[in-house]
């Protein structure tokens, strides 16, 4: 069933949800949020898209199969944990690089393995939820 209201609404909702999901992912570093909830929101945006325009259209917009996305995410999360091997720490110990300083307070930019891990979680949740929901919608 195609609803013109839903289609028009989806055009606004989908990008908004996607941007908000990225916001949640980044915010999660020190505040409530993070990869899991971000991934859920991201998946929601594509679910709205699939309801409005059909699952085939959603899969086309996604370009990569959600299963692959989820597994790549698992790989990224694992990779983030494995970075610790180079510094001799235990698995999944957070690794920080302070640029322009030497601590959290003074550094102007601090790339770290924790964000990478969160991105991995984001993709796992995003891909996992989407693959289930799309499969269910196609069955029904």
């Amino acid at each position, binding site marked *: 069933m195609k609803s013109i209201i839903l289609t028009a609404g989806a055009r606004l909702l989908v990008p908004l949800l996607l941007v908000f999901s990225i916001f949640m992912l980044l915010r999660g570093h020190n505040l409530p949020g993070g990869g899991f909830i971000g991934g859920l929101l991201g998946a929601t945006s594509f679910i709205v898209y699939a309801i409005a325009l059909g699952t085939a259209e959603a899969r086309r917009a996604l370009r990569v199969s959600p299963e692959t996305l989820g597994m790549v995410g*698992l790989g990224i999360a*694992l990779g983030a944990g*494995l970075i610790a*091997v180079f510094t001799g720490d*235990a*698995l*999944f*110990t957070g690794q920080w690089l302070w640029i322009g300083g030497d601590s959290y307070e003074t550094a102007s930019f601090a790339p770290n393995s924790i964000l990478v891990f969160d991105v991995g979680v984001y993709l796992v949740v995003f891909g996992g939820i989407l693959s289930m929901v799309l499969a269910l919608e196609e069955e029904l």
Partner: protein
Amino acid sequence: MTSWFLAAPLVIPFVTAVAAFLLRNSETGRWVSVAGSAAMLVASLLLMAEVLDKGVLAGQMGNWPAPFGITLVADTLSAVMVVITAITSLAVVIYGMGEVPVRLERLGYHALYNAMIAGVTGAFLTGDIFNLYVWFEVMLISSFGLLVLGGTKEQLDAGVKYVALNLVSTLAFLAGIGMLYGMTGSLNMAELALTVPQVENQALVTVVAMLFMVGFGVKAAVFPLFFWLPAAYHTPRFSVSAVFAGLLTKVGVYALMRVFTLIFVGDVSFTHEILLWVAAATMVTGVLGAAAQTDFRKILSFHIISQIGYMVLGLALYTTTGLVGGVFYLVHHIIVKANLFLIAGIAQKAAGGNELSRIGGLYKAAPFLGLLFLIPAFSLAGFPPLSGFWAKFVVVKATLELGHWFVAFLALAVGLLTIFSMTKIWAAAFWKPHPDGIEPSLSRVDRGELVPMMIPVVGLAVLTMIIGLHPEPFVQIAETAADQLLDPTAYITAVLGEEAAP
């Protein structure tokens, strides 16, 4: 650096799962899976060597100190279980090269398989009770995927029963964890070992212990919670059912052994007495159930249940000899049972079925296969000099030491009935002529399939022989494991540091 010995056997299957999934459409995916299993075997042997050398190892993941972070711990029992997991995993993945069709590989068979192995390994290595629940879930989800992969009607039927009953068990387990956390404020197993005895309301502790017993009991398929097992294990591919039969129920037994030696030892005369009679009933019902079956794999499935009884019996006795028997039994049974399921797969290819009334004549066609069947079958029944003899011998000896004459009698009688079931398979599948008058023969099986299927069967049979003929080092390892289980001081200090010693 210690923590990487612990992390490696866990990380490798996950990496393999990701790589195998991304390469699932090409031949390479299969080889990645084989290479991953081999690498895991190497990593687990290194862990084993380290544990035998230095005693209990503990590592804090993410550098969060215990009891706040997730701890991985390997005592001798964990290390042994990880090694045996890796051996089974490698054997089954090689077997799968001949048995798992390309269609299933494209659906992600190897990814699910490796994720399940990771779940099993995680459950053996974790030192955190909630983390144990997480590994159970990883294992459950991926094993459910494996069970229904291919999607035939009976597979889905089996899958639903499997997942429904396992969810009930996880619920009991989770409720237990919640109450335990409420009483002690800790989830770290080593810390629980210290705080649980100090809880004022010991009656409530026993209630929680029963919740754990039910939760793990379903996983281990003990009486009266075993119904899901024979309903599920005969439907998927032989590779899948072999690894299920070998490993999955043993995770439940391992978890029982862990919590009922480390945490819930305050009321041994009550909890372990229950375990003792549960074990006896499990042995008897399993073997009687098997006697009523006529399908190769269903007979073997019921025998898993009856053998689980012996392992739980070893735990229930709660003596060194009993635990030695339990641990030894655990290891021996994983090898033997996985091997029997693998042989059932070859027999099906050669004779065209698994229903005993519809196959036959295998001995004439493939005497070597007959020999390969006899080794694990007699080992299962407990014939000397095979591995099962020593396992049964130690368990029964421990039972007699405590004067449980009746249970010891049951254990021996069940052994006798096991021979009855095995000879039933032997007579029907190997000796009697094929009912359709055709000559089954291994040459009907494609060579490219037969060779990878035979290699692990022979390998596991040799392993059974080695354990049987040269049991001394294995018994010694089992003794170390049993001593560490009975006196958890080393476990606790490895996790929490020297000053925490009770």
